[in-house]
């Protein structure tokens, strides 16, 4: 073997390894994919907030960068290397007037006028200020006026029939609602005095320094939420425009989950990945 051939083989092996690495990155073998955008430096996966006429340009502060939303709703996209089935969005924001805020993910647009979202609350002043006993697990929260249950699972399996339970962005099976007459849907002017429990698919935001807050929102997703290889999120702040107020966003972190690929299913996963790509290319 000549020197040239030997060198060529070495380089071919190196580039094949790079190609394999790129494909493995796209396959997300670990089942977990984290993307973050802090607005100081662009992110390959998370867009800046848009549309431009509703948002300020990026403002560079001492230690961080942020964008202001003046007119709602504002949007951002998260590009996807694969389909994911769960998303956790951590949003660091400043909402000086404590406006009601929601985060939504857009459903796949079959027609240009399709405008369907799955909406989750980010901020609820009345719940944030509550001093009841609080527990949360996997994006579900439970507030108890008097501590009786130590886990949400225990509460859900032993719903107290004589106590009033408020549902905020949470749904029970219709049969359960029929059996328990004391289950009440949330309304903005609800009176907490005669209520005993609040269960919600909502985690109150954590307070950070200098008025900034961090909210975590969980979504169960699937292919029907993917628009042009991205999840499209909407930040809704009703009344912001009319009151001429602003909300600032300084950090977006998205954690996406899908089933882990272990060695046994790797080849099957790889084959289905290539078949889908080929089909998508041909169609």
């Amino acid at each position, binding site marked *: 073997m000549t020197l040239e051939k030997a060198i*060529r083989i070495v380089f071919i092996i*190196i580039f094949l390894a790079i190609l394999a690495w790129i494909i493995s990155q796209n396959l997300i073998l670990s089942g977990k994919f984290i993307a973050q955008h802090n607005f100081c430096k662009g992110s390959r996966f998370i867009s800046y907030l848009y549309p431009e006429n509703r948002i300020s340009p990026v403002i560079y502060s001492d230690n961080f960068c942020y964008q202001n939303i003046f007119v709602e709703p504002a949007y951002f996209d998260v590009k996807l290397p694969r389909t994911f089935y769960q998303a956790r969005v951590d949003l660091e924001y400043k909402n000086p007037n404590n406006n009601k805020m929601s985060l939504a993910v857009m459903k796949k647009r079959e027609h240009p006028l399709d405008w369907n979202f799955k909406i989750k609350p980010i901020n609820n002043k009345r719940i944030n200020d509550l001093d009841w006993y609080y527990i949360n697990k996997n994006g579900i929260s439970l507030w108890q006026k008097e501590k009786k249950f130590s886990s949400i699972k225990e509460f859900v399996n032993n719903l107290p029939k004589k106590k009033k339970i408020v549902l905020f962005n949470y749904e029970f099976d219709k049969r359960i609602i029929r059996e328990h007459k004391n289950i009440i849907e949330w309304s903005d002017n609800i009176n907490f005095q005669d209520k005993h429990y609040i269960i919600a698919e909502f985690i109150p935001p954590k307070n950070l320094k200098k008025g900034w807050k961090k909210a975590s929102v969980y979504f169960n997703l699937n292919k029907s939420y993917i628009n042009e290889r991205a999840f499209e999120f909407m930040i809704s702040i009703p009344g912001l425009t009319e009151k001429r107020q602003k909300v600032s966003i300084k950090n977006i972190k998205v954690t996406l989950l899908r089933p882990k690929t272990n060695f046994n299913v790797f080849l099957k996963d790889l084959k289905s990945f290539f078949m889908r790509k080929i089909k*998508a290319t041909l169609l």
Partner: protein
Amino acid sequence: MKPLNLNQFLKIIYIIFKELFIVASFFAILICVLEDLQFGLISFWFSFKTFFIILIGEGVLTLILSQFVKSK
């Protein structure tokens, strides 16, 4: 084993550069075709701009080296 003189050393460097350029060019074509066919989001993991700047720089260097090796 005799130590390499400058000409031999330059020739080996030239061969390495030439082979790297050939293989990297094929790789670049393959990656561009895959990306153009929307075969995953390769550009997210791979900076095309940096890769092509390095490839062109390396190609120019190979060309200069080839002239140098041939003239000797």
